[in-house]
């Protein structure tokens, strides 16, 4: 890395907040150092890696930036300061993100200083559309606000299951919301996108599952709003979350990372692939990660495709699959597909179009109902055998109607309905529904998940929860309910919502 320009080194070290500690005197550095300035030659080979990614810092001093440098002008104004870690052993520069400072708002810097901060993974600054999007974790938010600080500790698994399943999950949506008459929708901050949400969701799942990140050997990221036409989100996730074994000298991760795309079922489609992979006899100790993430796109109201603007949300959802310490075993699956062009986005078009009256029937209803009923038939299940039904949720109406059509009662499907809180999170939509159910299910509950992706297809899965669910669930503070009912949620007006959604 040493011959890289600082701009790229900021990405390598700053994305993950890497540092070094001298094994002789304990001095710490925010960057890679082969020796310690205090100890000189004695410290060669004695330097230990440090990582502040999961840590809590403190805002030591700060100031208000109202005239940013050129690349930061889109932020308008923000608080910038020095963040200290380990009681001041290491200090890093940082921008406070997730805050919209109003023009007449009084700023008392002493109210910010001394408070705990958590590193957030964000876009670094604006660049030209043709350039690589720079990212950084030198963006922070207060740990006593929306996004709590949570420790990540690796827990040694103690039970291997016969069937593969979910060993942990995490959901990330933003602090900003826009209110419609019947639903609320999550709105990304300026520096957020599908990539940053994927990383945050993955971070949450690591925290909850306690798995060893170096044992992950496959990561799938499903999205239809990747800011790149060509360049995977999964590679960024793999590098920032250090998935798989890390080759430090070469700066690579021994993990397979791949993006998938199939409208809103890009992530659920590969649940079975992830499960099958860890079921492979030689791979029982490994984990596979699936993330569904979207900054769901919609044209502005009044423009063609603007109908979607009433429903689109923002968020990411991550599931970790494995054979050890499973919280929901995969009982079976069934998928269906047809070439139904109910919703599409042509290359180079910023916003999707949809097929109007055909988006419900024959698109959504037919595929969801077929996949679900086929799976139930295969597993010889009646609706009463299912404790929770989760389906893709582009709005409130569709999932409610399809649940009734399949014979499910309100208590079976209402717990999964999160679209009214976060909007339609596209690839993350039905996964967030599944996470919401896992947040409240009891052991031995059967969950039927049916996703839907325009274009069109559905994946139905049956999961059976295990006795390990309640314990693992307790490790996560940043639950769906926490994000849905957080006192620090900030509602924005329509202009701000469009501006935030467009981003840097």
């Amino acid at each position, binding site marked *: 890395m040493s011959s890289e320009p600082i701009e790229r080194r900021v990405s390598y070290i700053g994305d993950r907040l890497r540092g070094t500690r001298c094994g002789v005197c304990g001095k710490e550095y*925010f960057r890679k150092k082969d020796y310690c300035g205090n100890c000189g030659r004695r410290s060669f080979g004695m330097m230990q890696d440090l990582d502040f990614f999961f840590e809590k810092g403190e805002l030591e*001093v700060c100031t*208000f930036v109202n005239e940013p*440098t050129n690349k930061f002008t889109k932020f308008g104004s923000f608080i910038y300061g020095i963040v200290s870690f380990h009681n001041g052993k290491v*200090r890093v520069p940082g921008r406070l993100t997730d805050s919209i400072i109003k023009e007449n708002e009084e700023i008392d810097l002493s109210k910010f200083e001394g408070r705990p901060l958590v590193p957030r993974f964000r876009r670094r600054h604006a660049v030209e559309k043709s350039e690589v999007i720079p990212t950084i974790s030198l963006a922070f938010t207060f740990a006593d606000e929306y996004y709590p600080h949570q420790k990540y500790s690796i827990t040694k698994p103690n039970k291997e299951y016969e069937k593969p399943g979910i060993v942990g999950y995490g959901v990330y949506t933003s602090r900003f919301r826009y209110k419609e008459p019947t639903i609320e929708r999550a709105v990304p901050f300026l520096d957020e996108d599908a990539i940053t949400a994927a990383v945050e969701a993955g971070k949450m799942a690591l925290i909850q599952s306690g798995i060893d990140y170096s044992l992950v050997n496959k990561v799938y990221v499903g999205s239809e709003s990747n800011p790149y036409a060509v360049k995977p989100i999964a590679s960024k996730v793999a590098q920032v979350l250090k998935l798989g074994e890390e080759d430090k000298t070469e700066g690579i991760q021994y993990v397979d990372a791949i993006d998938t795309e199939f409208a809103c079922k890009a992530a659920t489609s590969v649940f079975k692939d992830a499960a099958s992979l860890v079921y492979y006899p030689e791979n029982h100790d490994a984990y596979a990660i699936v993330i569904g993430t979207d900054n769901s796109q919609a044209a502005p109201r009044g423009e063609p495709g603007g109908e979607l603007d009433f429903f689109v949300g923002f968020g990411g959802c991550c599931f970790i699959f494995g054979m050890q310490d499973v919280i929901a075993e995969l009982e079976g699956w069934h998928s269906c597909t047809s070439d139904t062009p109910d919703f599409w986005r042509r290359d180079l078009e910023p916003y999707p179009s949809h097929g109007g009256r055909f988006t419900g029937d024959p698109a959504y209803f037919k595929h969801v109902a077929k996949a679900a009923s086929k799976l139930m038939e295969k597993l010889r299940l009646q609706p009463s055998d299912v404790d929770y039904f989760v389906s893709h949720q582009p709005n409130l109406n569709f999932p409610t109607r399809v649940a009734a059509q399949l014979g499910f009662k309100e208590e079976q499907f209402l717990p999964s309905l999160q679209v009214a809180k976060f909007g339609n999170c596209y690839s993350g939509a039905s996964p967030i529904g599944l996470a919401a159910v896992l947040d409240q299910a009891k052991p031995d509950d059967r969950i039927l998940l049916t996703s839907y992706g325009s274009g069109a297809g559905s994946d139905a899965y049956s999961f059976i929860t295990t006795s390990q669910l309640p314990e693992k669930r307790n490790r996560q503070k940043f639950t769906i309910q926490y994000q849905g009912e957080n006192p620090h949620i900030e509602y924005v007006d329509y202009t701000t919502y469009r501006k935030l959604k467009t981003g840097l």
Partner: protein
Amino acid sequence: MQPRSAIIGAGRTPFGEHYEKEPEALVEESGLRALDSAGIERRDLDACYLADYFLPFTNKIGLEEGFFSELLELHVPMEITRCFSSALFSASNAIQSGRYQLVLVGGIEKMTDRWDKIRDDLMLLEDPWSYYAGCTPEANHELMLRAYIKKYGIQDEDLEKLQTALAYIAVKNHKHAIKNEYAQYQREITVGQVLKARTRARKPLGMYDFAPVSDGAAALILASPEAAKTYTDMPIYILGSASATDYITFSSREDRTSFIASTLATENALKMANIKLSDIQIAELYDQSTMLEMVSLEDLGFCKRGTAWMNIYDSCKDYKGYYLVNGRKLYVNLNGGLKADGNPLGATGGAQVFEIAKQLSGDAGERQVHIEDGLQYGCSLELEGFGTKAYVYIFGRD
């Protein structure tokens, strides 16, 4: 006192916005004035040491030495450095070593030609890691002030006094600049204006706390002490010179309420000059912000740590033209400082030395300081980046 080298001539252009002048014109103007005042021809020069930070960016001038060679029609050795003081450092070392007898030291900057990008350039120069976290050229000064307030537990009335003291610095420097025909801002400002700008910006420091971006050039003719006598009766000697360096990333420095580089350079320069700090009567300090003038008074040792604001406050309540420090008069930034004289990076140090040389030789016109026991010693502090490099010079006269 052992003179190391001698200034025998100095020239400068006005600082400000010179959109009508090409860099060549500024270099020529300052160079010719310096040569004139020394009474030498450019062909007498043994070498040139020149300073600029951004000419390759602002004016797309690549190999500056060649550009100067063509301009001066000279083929002597030429070296480029960033700040003027660093060019002067190399020049005086070369003269001290006996290699050259007559050397031109010059500095130029045309920052306003890149008005839309210069803040990014400055920030990338002074602290690239912080730049990528969102830092601005102003933010580090403000963080230093916040850290200072916190470290010394300054609050309530004292905090108000400190804030007023910083405003006084800007007001004082503008006052000095009125008598400086070269200064960018030859007008007075009020404490009210300084404070109002801070309120408007909602920041600890406002527009009037910071030096502007400027265009300008400055030049000196440096000679060996022996050669100097043949050209002038009043050479101004460089008695001490020293520089020191600090980490580029502000947040990783041990102490964020002072510049260790300034302190180290001062100690070494004084040692070399073999005089005491209290012998210094006039000082040109690097007031890129009012905060830096305050902190420099502590870094150089004129004021005790954490107390400079009290000296400034007391001296400026009813300003008599100098700071009263430990019962002694200390004249600071007589040309108006960077704040009012202007700050064309490569030339800034030249204007500082120009001022000291003029004052010591009694040639400062309306600005001339009169001291009963006679004006003997002056010093200058120039910084590169945000305290990343510090150059301190001790000047004296016969």
